[in-house]
C-alpha cells in the first residue's frame, strides 16, 4: 500500500475515534441536560440528514453533472417507507418500547429498506433520464418529485385510517420510530454512525473506477462513450446510488421527527427542507466536493438556526430582519451571486483532507505573510 494512503487511513481513523470519544464524554456529561437534549441533539440529527442529502445530490449534480430537482422525492420515499414499516412492526408486536435488540434490528432494517426502495425508484427515474440530458432531466426529476408527493397524499393505507391511526391531518402521519427528545439522545450514535458510514461509502464510490467513469461522463459524454465507458449503465447506477442515500436521509428524518407531512418534501416551500435548498447546499459547498457538501450542510444548518433563533437578529436594522423572515430569499440571492462569481461553487472540486489541508493552509499563510499573490489552487483552501 502507498505510504501516503496508509498515513491517510491512520490519521482519519484516529480522528474518527477521537471525535467519537469526545462525543461520548459530551453525551455522558450533558446527556440529560435540557440544552443538549432539546437543542443540540435534534440539531445533530438535522445535520445528519442534511449532510446525507447534500452529499448524495452532489454525486449526481457535481460528479455526473446532471441537475436533479426532485431529490426530496427520494427522501420522501425513504421517510415514508421507514415510518410505515416501523409502524407495521410495532402493530405486529415485534417491539413495544424503543429499546432492546428487537427495536435496533427493526431500526436498521427500516433504514436499509428505505434506502433500497428509494434506489429502486432511482433506477426507474434514471432509465428515462438515459435518453435525456441537462434541462430535460431537471424537469423529469422535478415532475417525479411532485408525482411522489401527490401519490403519497392519495395512498389509502397512508391516510387517516391506515397505518397511521389517529393522525392529526390527512397528510400528516405518525411515525413508528419517531424519537422523543430522550430517545434522540439515546440513539444519537445510530444517526451519526449511519451518516458517517454513508459518507464513507460515497467517498469510496467517487474514488473508485466508477467515480472516475462518472466524472469522465460529466466532462465529455461522447468522448467517454468512445473510450468504452457504458454511459447508460453508469448514469443509472449513480442515480440509484444517490437515491439510496437520499432514502437513508429520509429514514433519519422519520426517526428524528415524530410525524411526517408531505409538505416537507415539495419542490419549494416556506421551510428549508425542499429540493431547491438541497441544490443550494451542494452549490455552496462546491459541485464535485463531497467534503464541501458536508461542511456546507452543517454551515447552512447553523446559519438557518441562527437566522430563526439567534438573539443577534434583533439587533439588525428592520429591512434585513424583514428579509430574514423569508430565509429562502437570502439563499436565492446567495445562490445567484455564487453561481455568477464561482460557477463551480465555493470550494469547487477541492476536497478537504486532514492530511493535506493543514499543510496547504500553512503554506498559504506563509505565502500571504511574504506578500505573494494567491494562486488559484490555494484560494480554495483559504476560502474556508
Amino acid at each position, binding site marked *: 500500500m502507498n505510504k501516503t494512503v496508509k498515513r491517510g487511513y491512520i490519521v482519519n481513523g484516529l480522528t474518527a475515534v477521537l471525535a467519537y470519544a469526545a462525543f461520548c464524554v459530551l453525551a455522558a456529561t450533558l446527556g440529560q441536560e435540557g440544552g443538549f437534549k432539546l437543542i443540540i441533539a435534534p440539531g445533530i440529527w438535522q445535520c445528519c440528514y442534511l449532510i446525507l442529502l447534500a452529499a448524495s445530490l452532489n454525486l449526481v449534480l457535481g460528479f455526473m453533472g446532471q441537475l436533479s430537482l426532485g431529490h426530496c422525492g427520494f427522501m420522501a420515499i425513504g421517510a415514508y417507507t421507514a415510518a410505515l414499516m416501523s409502524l407495521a412492526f410495532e402493530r405486529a408486536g415485534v417491539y413495544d418500547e424503543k429499546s432492546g435488540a428487537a427495536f435496533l434490528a427493526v431500526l436498521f432494517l427500516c433504514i436499509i429498506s428505505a434506502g433500497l426502495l428509494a434506489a429502486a425508484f432511482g433506477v426507474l427515474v434514471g432509465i428515462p433520464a438515459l435518453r435525456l440530458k441537462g434541462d430535460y432531466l431537471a424537469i423529469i426529476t422535478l415532475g417525479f418529485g411532485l408525482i411522489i408527493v401527490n401519490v403519497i397524499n392519495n395512498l389509502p393505507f397512508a391516510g387517516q385510517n391506515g397505518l397511521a391511526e389517529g393522525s392529526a391531518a390527512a397528510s400528516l402521519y405518525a411515525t413508528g420510530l419517531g424519537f422523543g427528545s430522550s430517545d434522540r439522545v439515546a440513539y444519537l450514535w445510530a444517526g451519526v454512525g449511519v451518516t458517517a458510514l454513508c459518507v464513507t461509502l460515497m467517498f469510496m464510490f467517487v474514488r473508485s473506477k466508477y467515480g472516475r467513469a462518472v466524472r469522465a461522463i460529466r466532462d465529455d459524454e461522447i468522448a467517454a462513450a468512445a473510450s468504452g465507458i457504458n454511459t447508460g449503465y453508469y448514469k443509472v447506477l449513480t442515480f440509484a446510488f444517490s437515491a439510496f442515500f437520499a432514502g437513508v436521509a429520509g429514514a433519519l428524518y422519520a426517526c428524528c421527527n415524530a410525524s411526517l407531512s408531505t409538505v416537507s418534501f415539495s419542490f419549494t416551500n416556506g421551510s428549508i427542507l425542499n429540493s431547491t435548498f438541497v441544490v443550494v447546499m451542494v452549490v455552496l459547498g462546491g459541485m464535485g466536493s463531497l467534503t464541501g457538501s458536508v461542511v456546507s450542510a452543517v454551515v447552512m444548518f447553523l446559519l438557518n438556526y441562527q437566522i430563526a433563533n439567534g438573539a443577534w437578529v434583533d439587533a439588525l436594522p428592520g429591512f434585513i430582519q424583514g428579509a430574514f423572515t423569508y430565509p429562502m430569499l437570502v439563499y436565492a440571492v446567495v445562490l*445567484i451571486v455564487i453561481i455568477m462569481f464561482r460557477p463551480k461553487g465555493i470550494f469547487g472540486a477541492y476536497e478537504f483532507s486532514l492530511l493535506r489541508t493543514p499543510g496547504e493552509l500553512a503554506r498559504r499563510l506563509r505565502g500571504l505573510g511574504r506578500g505573494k499573490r494567491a494562486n488559484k489552487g490555494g484560494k480554495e483552501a483559504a476560502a474556508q
Partner: protein
Amino acid sequence: MGVFLQTLFVGLRLGSVYALIALGYTMVYGIIRLINFAHGDFIMVGGYTLIFTVPLMTAAGLPAWLAVVIAIAVCALVGVGVELVAYRPVRRKGTGMTALITAVAMSLFLENLAQAIPAIGPNPIIASQLFAPGGFRVAGVTLDFVTIYTIAVSAAVMLLLYVFTQKTRMGRAMRCVSEDKSAAVLMGISVNRTVLTTFAVGSGLSAVAALMYVAQYPKVYTTMGSLLGLKAFVAAVAGGIGLIPGAMLGGLVIGLVESFTTSYISSSLTDAVVFLILIAVLLIKPAGILGKNVGEKV
C-alpha cells in the same frame, strides 16, 4: 353528454391559458436554450399588478381588464430585468447547468421577494371581478363569457404572435438567432437585443395569461405561478419545445387532459397525470409531438 361538453370547455379554457404561458417558455428556450423557471413567477407579478391597477382603472372610468396593459408593461420590464441582471452574466461565463440553477434561484427569489414586500405578504389576495358575469346556456351546458373571452383572446394573441415572428424584421431576427447564433451575428443581427425582445414578449404574454387566469380563479398569491408555470412548461415540452405551434398544441392538450382527469378520474391526481404525460412524451418522442429528432454532431 352535458358533463362531457362542460369538461371540454373547461379544458379548452385552461388549455388556452397554458398555451399562452407555454409560448413564453418556448420562445425563451428556442433562443437561448434555457428553461426559464422564473417564467411562472412572471404570472404572479402580472397577477399582483392587476390587483393593484384594477382599482385605478375603475376609478378612471375605464373597463377593469384594461389594467392588463400596465401588467404587460410591468411583466416585460421584470423579464428584461431578470435577463440583464442574472441570466446574461451567467450565460457569458458558465455552462448550461449553471444557467439552469440561476433560473431556479431567480424563481425562488421572485416568490420570496413578493412575500417580503409588505403590501403583498404571504396571504392570498382575492381579485375583483374583471369581466362582466353571465353566459349562455346551450343544451344544458353553461358557457361563461369568461370562457369565451379566454379562448378568443388567446387565439388572437397566438395569431398576432405568429404574424410577428413570420413577417416582421424582429420576428425574423428571433428565428435566425434561435437557428444559429453565430451565423446571425455575421448577418448583422444584434443577438443581445433580440434576446431582450424575446424576454419582453414572452413575459408580456404571461401578463395576458395572468389576466385570463385571475378572471377565472380570482385569487392571487405568491406561489401561484410555480405549479402553473411547471404545467405550462410540460405543455411546451409535450408540443415540442422551441416551436411556437408546438406550445399552442401542447397547452391545449395539457388543459384538456387536466380537465378530463379532474372530472372523470380524481381531482387530486391531476398533477401526477400531467407529469406522467410529460415522462411518457419524453420517453416516446423526446423532441415533442411536433418536434423533429436531431442527431448529435461530434
